């Protein structure tokens, strides 16, 4: 047995060293993934036994012996009210959820130990949307691009022991760079060479799942989960080079967006009877948040005229790290021949990492109080007819209260600043979603 465990651990170490591990995405950070997870307030790190496993805890997939595939839809919206400023609108987000767990049917010492997981979110008609307003414009610096990017998280996991599994994967997406060069033809018309590259970027995620009940029946139902998600962002760089009457004009800009912090998440869950309780705590390294506005550099020298243009000035955002707490519960409310009905609810608190906006920037953000509900129906068949695989329907919703936060500007701020003399907002975020997932057997 000891030798078997050693081989499993070695295999896992090799497998996980090959992958670069993975990441986390904005819409998932803001609302969570899957109606079940949303309804439980996101407290899923020590649960992670459904189509959301690759996101919530990739190690959870290794405990699943049946393949599972899930498809669903998520819609999010907001209701914001500005205080001292006109609140900018926040785009609604809706898109397709697709997740899977595929246990890899190895034989020998790897039987029922290795699984592939995938969690993905495809916003409607969009792979990546970035809005970077002027630095002084009032803006939801953390939310304005939330949900405007595809999330794609493939993972692998392995059960090292009957009580312990580990997993890891990557979130893949792209950074964008390119150029725009205009050429003047003999007839005065202009032609351009345009290049744009989308270069893959990766951020790691890794998880551990501990189920002591497999060895010690006294704590059957108790699970611990730990997850690391590396920071994630996309960068954008395109120089625009053209000619104004034969005088070269080059304007280059760089932007960073969709920043999601490095996270360390610990979770605990306990299942007893018809009840499942879960709690998560997450440490979020927002202090590494980069300057979120466009960096602009200008190269334009007009002959004869001693005129110089100035580049933009970057101001550090000075965000601070936060600790987020989430709790959730699930109860099997009814169980019959045709199926099982479940209800869930959750609560959470996510403090804002954004400091008071007393300077030139007007980053709108505040604490989030999170409440969620969800229902699930595991449909086994109708009467004596049983489906070859159960159909699992989940519906869930989440409401987030954003309490008022107002900051008075410092005296040194230009009175023409849009946030002068005070800037603030309050509002609500909401998300609703539904999924159908099917645990099945390989043929």
């Amino acid at each position, binding site marked *: 047995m000891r030798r078997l465990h050693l081989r499993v651990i070695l295999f896992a170490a090799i497998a996980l060293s090959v992958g670069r591990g993975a990441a986390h995405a904005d819409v998932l950070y803001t609302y969570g993934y899957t109606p079940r997870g949303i309804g439980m307030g996101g407290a899923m790190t020590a649960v992670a036994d459904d189509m959301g496993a690759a996101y919530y805890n990739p190690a959870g997939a290794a405990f699943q012996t049946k393949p599972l595939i899930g498809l669903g839809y998520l819609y999010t919206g907001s209701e914001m009210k500005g205080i001292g400023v006109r609140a900018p609108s926040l785009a609604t987000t809706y898109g397709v959820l697709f997740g899977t767990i*595929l246990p*890899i*049917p*190895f*034989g*020998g010492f790897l039987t029922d130990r290795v699984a592939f997981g995938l969690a993905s979110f*495809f916003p409607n008609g*969009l*792979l*990546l949307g*970035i*809005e970077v307003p002027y*630095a*002084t414009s009032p803006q939801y610096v953390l939310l304005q691009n939330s949900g405007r990017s*595809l999330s794609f998280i493939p993972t692998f996991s392995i059960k090292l022991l009957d009580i312990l599994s580990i997993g890891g994967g990557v979130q893949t997406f792209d950074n*964008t760079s390119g150029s*725009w060069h*205009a050429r003047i033809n003999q*007839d*005065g*018309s*202009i*032609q*351009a*060479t*345009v*290049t*744009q*590259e*989308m*270069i*893959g970027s990766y951020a790691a995620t890794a998880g551990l799942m501990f189920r002591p009940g497999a060895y010690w029946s006294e704590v059957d139902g108790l699970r611990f989960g730990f997850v690391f998600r590396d920071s994630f962002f996309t960068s*954008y760089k*395109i120089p*625009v080079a*053209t000619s*104004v009457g*034969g*005088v070269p004009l080059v*304007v280059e*800009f760089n*932007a960073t967006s969709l920043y999601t912090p490095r996270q360390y998440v610990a979770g605990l869950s306990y299942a007893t009877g018809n009840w499942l309780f879960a709690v998560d705590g997450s440490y979020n390294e927002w202090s590494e948040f980069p300057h979120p*506005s*466009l960096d*602009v*550099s*200008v190269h*334009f020298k007009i002959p004869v*005229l001693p*005129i110089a*243009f*100035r*580049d*933009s*000035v970057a101001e550090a955002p000075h965000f601070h790290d936060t600790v987020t707490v989430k709790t959730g519960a699930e109860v099997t409310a009814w169980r019959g021949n045709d199926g099982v009905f479940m209800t869930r609810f959750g609560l959470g608190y996510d403090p804002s990492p954004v400091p008071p906006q007393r300077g030139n920037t007007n980053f709108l953000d505040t604490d989030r109080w999170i409440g969620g509900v969800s229902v699930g129906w595991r449909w086994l068949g109708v009467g004596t007819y049983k489906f*070859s*695989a159960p159909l699992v329907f989940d519906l869930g919703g989440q409401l987030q209260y954003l309490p008022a936060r107002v900051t008075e500007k410092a005296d040194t701020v230009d009175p023409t600043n849009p946030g002068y003399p005070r800037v603030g907002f309050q509002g609500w975020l909401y998300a609703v979603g539904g999924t159908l997932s099917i645990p099945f*057997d*390989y*043929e």
Partner: protein
Amino acid sequence: MARRFAILCLLTLLPAAAWAGPYEFFGTGPRAMAMRGAYAAISDDAAGYYYNVAGITQVGRFHAEFGYAFGVPDMTINGVKQNVNDNRGINIGAIVSSDVAGHRLSGGVNAFVPDAHMMRFLELPTDQPHSPMVANADQTIVELAGAALEVTRWLSLGVGLNMLASNHGGVNFQVNQNKPSQGELNSKIGSVFSPIAGIWSKPLDWLRVGLSYREKLFCRLTLPNDIQIPALTLPGSEQALLRASDLKLWADTWSHFSPRQFELGFAFEPHSRVTISTDLTYMQWSEMKSDAPHTLVYLSGGLADVFPSTNGPPPPPPDFHDTWNPALGIEGRPVVDPRAALALRLGYRYRPTPVPDETGINNYLDSDTHIFSGDFGLTIGKFWDVFPRAISLDVFAQMHYMAPRIIHKSDPDDYIGDYRFAGEWWNFGANLTFRF
């Protein structure tokens, strides 16, 4: 001489690689590439997502493939070798099958991920010589997803999607003289989907038939930029030398075009150790739009008073024509044993060019191409209890011979002038297949 020098300078930017999409140019899957795409009637692995998605129902349980391929070009213009990008990337595929009410249902993905980028738009001016099939097509990720149902033991139907990206977005700058410049960005990379579908049938033990449809696919790149320049003053003076100006730059282009295709294939087994397959593919290249950027520049305000500018007409259409592409593949299995099996494959495809004689301003480089291919496949039976079923290793090679083509311009003062080009592509790769 100056003209030739100009051509060579321009062509150092000639991008690499493939035609429409890397799968249109090279194919996918070692076995399919070795049989040079004569695969619509076979399609019994992850290559089936491209050649005939209905064929994947021939695969049971769980099937995974991992491969790597690299293509090396050798293209010349007027006898001078061009610096064309090669084509390298990872290919992965998976098929998962289950039983639904007594019928096999199979689904999964096939993806190609280039080493260099996930996707590249390289949009060149109308008159710059470049290959429309190689400029961007190979420099892109390919993602095919599909599912197929075995309706009867001899008939399967399948559908799927091919996905790419489009891009719209630009920046607004305020280029300032007396305070820091600033800008805002709005960029949207959208998804573009095109359907694929197939019918696969095995009416006789020795005959398989496949019919496949792939919808056209293309991307649009739109880059609107706005540069605002306030009134300009001399240092120490408040009097404006030039009033405020506004420069709008707009580029709009179509790229990564893959034509609509209809593919019919037959596969025969005249002997238990021999498979012969043949395909005919109709490709609707006539729908391709110019891939040159339509560039518009509008300058207003003070700078426009000093520097007037004009805009040219939109790029002319490429006027491509539709093509018929025949292909032939042969597979021999000299060693068939549960412990180890050996397969050798050969293939040939004729790819007629859709590009007309470029007598005008366009300079799309392409010519009729003969493609030869081969493959060596080794399948090892159960050798370790971790792997419950056979594992295959395939090593393949392709050679694309692009017949020399001479371009005569109708305008003797054409900026590029007459030229001759020819080329070859060598493509190699290896693939591992795991069956569970």
